[in-house]
């Protein structure tokens, strides 16, 4: 009797298993075809840094907040007594993307964006000169607009 029950149980459990796999065969797969499609990242994702140079006061609060000391800022006192930023480098080889610098910024000029594909070919490329980046972007904007912003205006 146990013999027959074993055979029946073997067949029955196999059928149950086949049913489960058949169900999964027709459920949509979870794979995202990465280079072709991407998952949208959360709005408070800590990705690549961006600096709004026009807002930045050069107070170094971010550099002081950084636990691994990867932010290097050089400033010069300008004629209008404001600090002019000469250098704003973030060394991402050290950075652990904790976001403390962004929290420390009193004028919300340092931000973390959504980009996460940060691999590059050279170690030099991993030091982000955020001030130069901002200036380049601005000049591109100007080039596409085809007109110069009025002098002294803060955009």
């Amino acid at each position, binding site marked *: 009797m146990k013999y027959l029950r074993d055979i029946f149980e073997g067949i029955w459990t196999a059928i149950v*298993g086949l049913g489960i796999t*058949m169900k999964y065969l027709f459920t949509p*797969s979870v*794979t995202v075809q990465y280079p072709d499609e991407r998952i949208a990242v959360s709005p408070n994702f800590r990705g690549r840094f961006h600096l709004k140079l026009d807002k930045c006061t050069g107070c170094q609060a971010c550099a002081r907040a950084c636990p691994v000391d990867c932010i290097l800022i050089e400033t010069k006192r300008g004629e209008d007594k404001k600090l002019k930023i000469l250098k704003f480098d973030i060394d991402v080889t050290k950075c652990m993307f904790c976001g403390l610098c962004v929290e420390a910024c009193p004028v919300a000029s340092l931000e973390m964006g959504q980009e996460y594909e940060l691999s590059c070919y050279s170690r030099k490329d991993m030091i982000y000169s955020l001030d130069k980046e901002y200036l380049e972007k601005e000049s591109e904007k100007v080039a596409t607009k085809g007109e110069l912003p009025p002098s002294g205006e803060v955009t």
Partner: protein
Amino acid sequence: MQAIFEILKSIYPLRHLSEILLLLLSMVIFSAIILGIIAILVMFFVWWERKVAGHIQSRLGPMRVGGWHGWAQSIADGIKLLLKEDIIPANADRMLFKMAPYIVFASSFAAFATIPMTRSLIGADLNIGIFYILAITSLIVIGILMAGWSSSNKWSLYGAMRSAAQIVSYEVPIGLSILVPVMAAGSLSIKDIAEAQSGGIFSWYIFRSPFLFISFFTYYIAAIAEVNRTPFDLPEAESELVAGFHTEYSGMRFAMFFLAEYANMFLVGSIATLLFLGGWNGILPRPMLPEFVNFILKSLFLVFVMIWLRWTLPRLRVDQLMYVCWKVLVPISFFCLIGHGVWMVFMGEA
């Protein structure tokens, strides 16, 4: 093959050649056709298996090669295997090592000679067709043993030994369950057996009697074990034996084993189709689809079930494997054999 022979004879410049030469030529042409069909099907199976495996595990499987759902994946794999270095271990028995994959493939390919894919697409309609297939597929075990022994690798040898034990054991229930449709048709010729099932789904042997119904399943399970597929893939159990008997093989020689494995799957599917599922006869009594399409669809379905089983069930232990064979399948197929004999006497089919 007879049809090809007639066609060749009717072509003008060939008419003056001797009969034997024409016969040889038609043999070559026929085997080329069958080899082509098998090669295309095997490439399809490899892709199909990976796709089904992927989707069962909520993945996608191959997606990139060739554009649409990675359809060219098998072609790319084939080219990769062709270009690979052919490595023979230093301590290997070179002669046996080189011969083994060809024996395995040749014996599974030779079995297709008596498989009638349609009424006319058949190599040789032997009056002992099914017996011939049983005999020739037994040669596979010799090739596997040669491969395992000549590799001089303990995993290969273990795999080959397991394979020998498994194939030889499972041939018993296969033989016994094949005898049931043979008894029902009163012929060993596969063509006659398939012909006897014409006339709609209810004249297929699987639905003719409860014993035929059971023996279809005993045949199918035993045949899966015979071709070393999961859940009976002990000879190449990758978690225990690296890759079993083909551990040391690479490149084209490995491809031959691979080709033979998938050709064997198709062989099992087509034998089960021909003996139990009506062969080239359609579901309706009137012919709806071409014979070849009927046959291929049914065989492909059985191959799909094999793939489906592979990605559902875990591997058996060696003692469980032998238990399933000797204590379950053999008694059941004996029971079916005797039961169907009694059934034929009392239902007046004898």
